[in-house]
């Protein structure tokens, strides 16, 4: 059986590159480390969850330091990586506060970002040889 990238401890530079890739594209870190099934699962589930949040008319919150809760929501949103910036560039995620699904949309997008942060930490642990 061939050793996968995950079976070796990565250098610190590679580890941080893996973390950046894992943040930018959900599951990319696991794919890089040879955990193909997990990587594909994260890629499909997290991107689909984020897109569902957009479809439910949730809002991509701006970084607003004067409103700490809005800034925290923006921090959670940006956890999904490049998808956040692509959605912003496409003028998606404006949010329609009177939509019945508005809060659901927010929850879907924020939780997708937060779950991706957990996925990044998992990729970090694998790259460090802890898992």
């Amino acid at each position, binding site marked *: 059986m061939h050793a996968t990238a995950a079976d070796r401890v990565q250098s610190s530079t590679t580890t941080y590159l893996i973390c950046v890739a894992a943040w930018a594209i959900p599951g990319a870190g696991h794919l890089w480390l040879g955990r193909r099934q997990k990587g594909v*699962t994260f890629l499909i589930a997290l991107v689909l969850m984020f897109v569902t949040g957009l479809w439910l008319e949730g809002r991509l919150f701006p970084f607003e330091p004067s409103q700490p809760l809005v800034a925290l929501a923006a921090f959670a949103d940006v956890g999904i990586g490049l998808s956040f910036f692509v959605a912003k560039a496409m003028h998606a995620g404006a949010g329609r506060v009177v939509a*019945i*699904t508005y809060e659901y949309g927010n929850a879907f997008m924020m*939780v997708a970002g937060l779950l991706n942060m957990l996925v990044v930490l998992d990729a970090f642990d694998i790259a460090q040889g802890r898992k």
Partner: protein
Amino acid sequence: MTSHLALMALFALFVSIVFAALTRDEPREQLLFGAKLFAGFVGAGIVAGWVLYPLPF
């Protein structure tokens, strides 16, 4: 789709899939743990809904 139950179930499905893949390595274990998580999330949501039902606000 505006059904609260369906949206709650969809949310629970996504979270269960990610947690199962994060915490279990074998696909069979992931499936079992994911199914238990999903049932737990949906069941807890329904129970919480019934508990909160009598509240006037």
